[in-house]
């Protein structure tokens, strides 16, 4: 039997025919990166190939000295006779599924993805393949997202109520992806959007990639307190309820994370409000993606892998789980931003 096109090694997903790794977690010569979250894009690789919008983000996160090349979606790269191309994953800006074709066999590594169009990231595109490597962070049927319009209506109502009482609104979200999705979708007529340094850093890299974001004001020591009152402050979870947030008082705090779907998590989180907003696919999304891929075999990585594989097998789709170092959406929503996402 031929060796599988992609194998799971202790360095990461390896395409031996091309000697290329996808999202490796240990240093390798040649890496293709699905997206710039820190569990997928790690330092120390000889070279990086990614989507053109991811390139500035990789430089921002890993240092300007890295050897990185950005390409558009759909462009084919042949390496040692293996054809690689990137396709929209809809997860965060620059996120891509990696299509790998060799001697008529096609594999797709999804990276992280969501199927709902968030209005900022190019939406997920199904890619036909024989083997689909899928994340399943939310691979159980209790995770069915509300349309984002409903969630943003809730966020707007909360912000509006706070602003009318003259208090600040602090929403914690991943600095890359969720933060920009929020600023692109909230009602900016309510007040100004202020950003934590980690968020503003990602904003700059995204603007550098030529993508337009609403106006944001970096929050500094000098920021006018009058401005803070009715503002929406977007910050990584690690900053909320620390001395950093003192100057924002009085404020109402919230978290935007898929885990907030569950009431117990909402109530136990230290914040006032939890919004179930995720950049990962929900249960119907995962199932739709698997079906649309037409894959006869599905390999599950990070998340509820065992459950989702068992479910797929019962549906007649051969599936098994492979261990990776990817983390999905961490449970306590970005308490440790740099190690999660």
């Amino acid at each position, binding site marked *: 039997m031929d060796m599988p096109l992609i194998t799971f090694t202790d360095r990461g997903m390896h395409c031996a025919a091309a000697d290329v790794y996808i999202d490796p977690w240990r240093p390798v010569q040649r890496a293709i990166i699905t997206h710039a979250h820190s569990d997928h894009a790690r330092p120390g690789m000889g070279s990086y190939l990614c989507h053109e919008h991811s390139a500035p983000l990789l430089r921002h996160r890993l240092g300007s000295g890295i050897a990185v090349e950005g390409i558009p979606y759909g462009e084919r790269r042949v390496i040692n006779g293996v054809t690689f191309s990137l396709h929209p994953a809809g997860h965060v800006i620059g996120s891509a599924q990696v299509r790998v074709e060799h001697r008529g066999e096609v594999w797709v590594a999804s990276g992280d993805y969501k199927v709902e169009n968030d209005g900022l990231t190019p939406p997920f595109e199904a890619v036909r393949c024989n083997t689909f490597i899928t994340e399943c962070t939310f691979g*159980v049927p209790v995770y069915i997202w509300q349309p984002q319009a409903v969630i943003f209506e809730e966020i707007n109502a909360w912000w509006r109520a706070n602003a009318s009482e003259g208090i600040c609104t602090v929403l914690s979200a991943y600095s890359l992806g969720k933060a920009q999705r929020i600023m692109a979708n909230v009602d900016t007529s309510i007040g100004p959007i202020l950003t934590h340094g980690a968020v503003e850093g990602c904003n700059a890299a995204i603007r550098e990639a030529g993508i337009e974001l609403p106006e944001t004001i970096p929050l500094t020591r000098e920021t006018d307190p009058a401005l803070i009152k009715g503002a929406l402050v977007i910050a990584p979870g690690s900053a909320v309820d620390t001395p950093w947030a003192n100057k924002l008082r009085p404020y109402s705090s919230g978290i935007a994370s898929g885990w907030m*779907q569950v009431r*117990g998590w909402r109530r136990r989180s230290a914040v006032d409000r939890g919004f179930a907003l995720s950049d990962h696919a929900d249960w119907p999304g995962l199932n739709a993606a698997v079906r649309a891929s037409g894959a006869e075999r599905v390999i599950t990585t990070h998340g509820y892998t065992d459950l989702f594989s068992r479910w797929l097998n019962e549906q007649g789709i051969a599936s098994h789980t492979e261990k990776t170092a990817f983390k999905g959406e961490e*449970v306590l929503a970005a308490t440790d931003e740099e190690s999660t996402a």
Partner: protein
Amino acid sequence: MQQFADLITRMDATNSTNEKVQALTDYFAVAPESDKVWTIALLSHRRPRRSLRTNELRTWAAQEAGVPDWLFEESYHIVGDLSEAISLIVPGNKQGNSGTLTEHIELVKALKGLSEEERRARVTGKWRELDRTGRFIFNKLITGGFRIGVSQKLMVRALSRHTGVPEDQLAHQLMGDWDPATIPFHDLVHVEESAAAASRPYPFCLAHALDMPPADLGDPADWMAEHKWDGIRGQLIVRGGELYLWTRGEELVTDKYPELHVLRDALPDGTVLDGELLPWRDDHPLPFQVLQTRIGRTSVSARALKEAPVVFVAYDLLEQDGADQRERPMQERRKALEAIVEQAKQNRLRLSPEVRFATWEDLAEERERSREMHSEGIMLKRRESVYRVGRKRGDWWKWKVDPLSIDGVLLYAQRGHGRRADLFTDFTFAVWKGEELVPFAKAYSGLTDEEMRKVDAYVKQHTKEKFGPVRSVTPMHVFEIGFEGIGRSPRHKSGVALRFPRILRWRTDKDIRDANTLEDLQELLHAHGQGAR
């Protein structure tokens, strides 16, 4: 139903007591009359009885969601709450809910008499019709386990704002036996002579933990002392030729203690006594554990009656000849009580003896003897005081003997070491802060092997999340935690750190809402904390 759903959403969205009271007040202003009555009932733990088996709900939900049973069970496990798991897994992205809360409760109550097919049709039909919050509430009504997230006290405050009836009066009015299905809102909140009035207990007067040297209370002659009994606080009512026995938890337990029924004829009609249910043999109270064997039972065996016969140790008189005595000074009430107990001549009824003392030093010495007396310490009551509603500072103090103790809810568990590595033996306990449980202590020793196995099984079955070796569990069990000292600690979420905490006993007699609060803990900190005085 939409109004009630909005209320739940608002309650969930805030940790502030004031906002919760405001949300409830706003709700009372717009809700239909019968919905208001049911809301009061739900918030004072008068739930409709469970109307079907949860197994049915699970099966139906799995089928509605188009998933196999095992996947439903896994999902339920992940969510940790059946009603919520169902509300999330049943497809449908509707927004909004029609119909009243009362209609939904009526529907739930009517399920009982139906065939399985009918029950299924009604329940799944509702699931499809309601939105997520609506489904969640509806399921909670079916399973009968509603915790809305606001104490009865706060509910009374909101109701008082809504009706203009004073809180104390409302608290009394809402006690006792009333049927939310039939009582009109007006009759519930306004004083009226009704059938329910005969059995209605008075709100209990509760003591504060003494948080200063007793000498600060002033002249010892102004104070009466007695032991703080370690039993079940109760109110004994004889009215209209009937006897009623209530516990502090507002549970009517008359049938559980048949040995006290003789008091119906021994006491004059129109008598209400405040006191303690204590297991008693040969002139001595027995340890609390003896009473525990009686608590969960509905019927009493002859053996239990023999091994743990209960007496009513009376310490206050609330009603005499049908007249409310609560405004009379304590020492007058006490005199009248002594006469009543004397006349009754029943060994099932005893007077809580007065502890005589001339100086605070005398009393401190007497307090040291509490353990011999099977008491928890000393109660101090101001001789001139009226009988108040609830926990008010100033007139009633409890001066417990050390070790200090507090009732906490088991929240996290961790595996033991060495011999115990396969058992969950290290526990984290929490107290209430509003409707949130805040961890305050870790403890491991103190349980018997059998209890340990039971707790271990509970942890394994009710794990909500795993964080490395630690598991969080569905809060269900209360433990009394003893400790040697208490200090302020900004590093802990509770703001306090305990010295040598250990498990004193498993309070199987307590519901999690009976666990102590962060305020209680702060009170202890104030009274006993390092550098507090």
